[in-house]
């Protein structure tokens, strides 16, 4: 399955880097996680804020769907959230911008090691996959609601 173009670009960047460069870029993305926080006045189709066992702090996922059906994600992260989770937040919010909810739901997770490297995935597997799981969960809720609405009408 073809990945969203923006995500492919990020993957290509990471794959071109040695391990040290990968870490540097993960830190840069984690620094940027705050830029993906909801702003005053934002309106969302779905808001899902919760604390799961899989993560060390609360994570909020907020999804807007534009007129073309593409998704825009915003996220809130509690202060104890780990650096790798922050990095994956910024990567996925950017990489999945404009993707359709069904595309997000169908997204295979095997691209994650191509970004963070197999070693980090092996050492912190739950951390690396957590944000993607949460985004998929929100996309699924959106699609279920859409299907229910169309069934009623």
């Amino acid at each position, binding site marked *: 399955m073809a990945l969203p173009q923006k995500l492919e670009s990020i993957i290509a960047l990471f794959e071109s880097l040695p391990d040290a460069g990968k870490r540097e870029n993960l830190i840069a993305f984690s620094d940027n996680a705050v830029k993906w926080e909801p702003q005053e006045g934002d309106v969302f189709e779905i808001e899902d804020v919760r604390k799961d066992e899989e993560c060390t702090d609360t994570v909020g996922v907020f999804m807007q769907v534009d007129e073309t059906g593409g998704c825009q994600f915003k996220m809130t992260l509690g202060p104890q959230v780990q*650096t790798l989770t922050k990095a994956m937040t910024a990567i996925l919010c950017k990489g999945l911008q404009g993707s359709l909810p069904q595309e997000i739901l169908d997204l295979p997770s095997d691209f994650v090691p191509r970004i963070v490297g197999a070693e980090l995935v092996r050492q912190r597997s*739950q951390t690396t996959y957590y944000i993607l799981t949460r985004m998929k969960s929100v996309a699924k809720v959106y699609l279920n609601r859409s299907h229910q609405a169309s069934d009623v009408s």
Partner: protein
Amino acid sequence: MSEYAHPDMLVDAQWLLDHQDDPNVRIVESNEDILLYDTGHIRNAVHIDWRADLQDDEIRDYISPEAFAALCSRHGITSDTTCVFYGDKSNWWAAYALWVFHLYGHTNTRLLNGGRDKWIADGRELTRDVPSFTASDYPVPPRRYDDDIRAFFDDTLQHSQSSKPLIDVRSPGEFKGEITHMPEYPQEGVLRGGHVPGANSVPWKMAANDDGTFKSAGELQQIYTDQCGLQQDDDIIAYCRIGERSSHTWFVLKYLLGYEKVRNYDGSWTEWGNRVRAPIEKGEG
């Protein structure tokens, strides 16, 4: 800090600032958050990861003495270097790394009281500059001191059967068997909940203040000596889930309270809870 049994094992921020450029001191950051060091660390601190640097995953053991010597050499550590450890999570992983250094006989170590969080809370500076030290020629340790400070499954079983002191430092919910992981953390592959029969529940957090520093010697004595009943000549084993929280308690018992014979069962609950025919108890104990 002067009332502790070995006050020299603990340093405060001012001590660290005074020794930040001391060539005989190496500051070592060890965290649970694998990328935290890269986001900023104490100037001149090197990074040692508890898993990637210290463990040999192929045999679930620690690295060979040769690999330990190479690790130290890479960071310019000599056998005479004073290694000062600090990290996140109230120094769990810093205490763990310190304990591993002791396994190889490198006992010239210190812990920064309060760790990384207190350093930041006190408004002290971090840097992203990674220091570079001239490689040293660290001698390969002739042996590992597992017998002295490390307990294995059989040691712990024997302890349990002979009613010797076993300290379970996990959260009360883990001890009772209600959960198999610490609160706020994922389930990491343990089939059964409960505790080693005969173990006392003394959560690691009881030894720490809210800012991550250790409680006073008097407060610690009240917890471990008065309430838990540990005697100075007791043979004590501490365990948790994977050995990091129990490293914290091992440090408290051995260096802040001065118990002579304290071992850390690093296999801990992830080994015991999964082991075929290992007996467990549930409930309050």
